[in-house]
């Protein structure tokens, strides 16, 4: 039987990879994927804790996170398409019209 701590450490590592990728990656889609990775790390944490406390509410929370992440993806991809149409690029370093 895998101990709870293993799941929590895995989730923490995934979350940190997500943060690192968010900061390092220059492609908008990759950045967006790293956010999804962070959300999934949270989901894993919730499921592990739900098992630890024998509370189903943690698992219900995961469903809500998934639903909201889907809604966010719909809006986010639409925004990315709008950006690509006006700028013909997905590189965040070139999305800097507003720096002084």
């Amino acid at each position, binding site marked *: 039987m895998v101990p709870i701590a293993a799941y929590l450490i895995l989730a923490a590592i995934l979350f940190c990879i997500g943060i690192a990728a968010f900061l390092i990656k220059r492609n908008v889609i990759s950045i967006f994927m790293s956010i999804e990775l962070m959300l999934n790390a949270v989901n894993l944490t919730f499921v592990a804790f739900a098992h630890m*406390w024998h*509370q189903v509410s943690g698992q219900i*929370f995961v469903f809500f996170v998934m639903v*909201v992440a889907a809604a*966010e993806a719909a*809006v986010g991809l639409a925004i990315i398409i709008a950006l690509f149409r006006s700028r013909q690029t997905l590189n965040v370093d070139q999305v800097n019209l*507003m720096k002084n």
Partner: protein
Amino acid sequence: MSTNLVTLLPELVLTITGVIVMLAEPLIAPGRSRKPLGWVAIFGTLVAAIMINGQRQFTNIHGAVQGFYGTLQVDTFSVFFHFLIAAIVIVTLLGSLDYFEGPTTHAGEYFALICFGATGMMLMTSSVELLMVFIGLEISSISTYILAGFRKGQATASESSLKYFLLGSFATAFFLYGIALCFGATGSTSIAAIAQGFATTQMPLMAWLALAMVIIGLGFKVSAAPFHVWTPDVYQGAPAPVVGLMSTAPKAAAFAVLLRFLFNAAPMFRDHWITLIQILAVLSMCLGNLGALRQRDVKRMLAYSSIAHAGYILVAYAAFPQEAVAAVCFYTASYAAMNVGAFLVITQLTGFNESARTLDDYTGMALRRPVLSALLGLFLLSQIGIPFTGGFFGKFYVFTAAIHSGYTTLAIIGLANSGIACFYYLRLLAALYTRPVTEPPTEAAPAQAFSPAIGVALAATAIATLMLGIFPNQVLHLAQRATPINMPPAAMVSVPPAP
């Protein structure tokens, strides 16, 4: 059943209004004015305000009530923020009725999104269950992501929207991880149960980490430094009326969540979170004001000023538990009045295409648009904190609250920052009343008179700013009564067995 309905009525009305506006939008022929939809949205928000008043009377008689198995709670605290958000939304809707005339054909979606966003913000202030807080936060965030990029034709709009979306989602992930760790430390996501769990937790390290994550997540949403990097770009690129809305209403909601969470769920970790909040407050005030000094773009300057205002509000959190809630409530209300007002004036001065952007464009504005410039002057003076304006009493209560709780250094740093802030507000004010050296190139922009709706909106914000400065007692009384009550968790939340 009946208490369930009472706790959700304003949100229900706003959702139905939003859906009606959304469904009616495609029925109006392209090219026709979308103004009637705007009026529907305003009417819906007014009905929601009446419902909030009903909630107020209900809580006066019955005290705080919970609904939906203890996820929503109506108390004086939620009623105060509901009123504030409804007022901001009505004024913003009135101010942007004419904004979308002509250039876009889908303005109806704009009105609907504002209604949905307001629903989310209201949910945030009345929920006592972190799942509900999260859903409210996301409803309001997703609506504002779209609103920020509403001028699709403008190159800056999609950039602003994208930055808001990426950093907003990043912050949401932190907030969620914080909730997950709270759940791990206590076995519940209900604020009252978390308070019980935190008091007896075997895992204090996890509880502190959870607190820090939640504060980081909400710190992004209220644009407190060092989580403020998105604010200037987003505010510069977003439409002016939307900036007025999103710099006040979602922030008020996030501050309300932070109050409820820190004061009700984690009072025993006060020493830990107060240090964190103090760091955020000092950084926000200093970086916001110093950043604003360097800006030539007016919207960008006001973005930095809003970071500084977030810092002032965070100062009040240090005054826990005595006067903090009243000071935060009063400051958010006065900040809302003056900031929404300032961005309404900018909407009217610059129009859809933003004919005036930098300080140079604003030079001599008072000669061309005397009334609007005078109003902008009033709002700027209020942001400085000149007596007889709402900004003065806001700062006064925040700093006295901090001093009464023994945080004199924090109050002194705040006062010094208010002094620095004078410089850039007065620079804009002076520019308004300076005769330009050369005739401005933006002569072509016609100085049209503004419509009655905008007149009402501007008058409302100006009167609110002055009233809060001259007769603050009424709002202060409401703010003092607004306490986030920590009711015992509902019966269904049983104490979980030890792992």
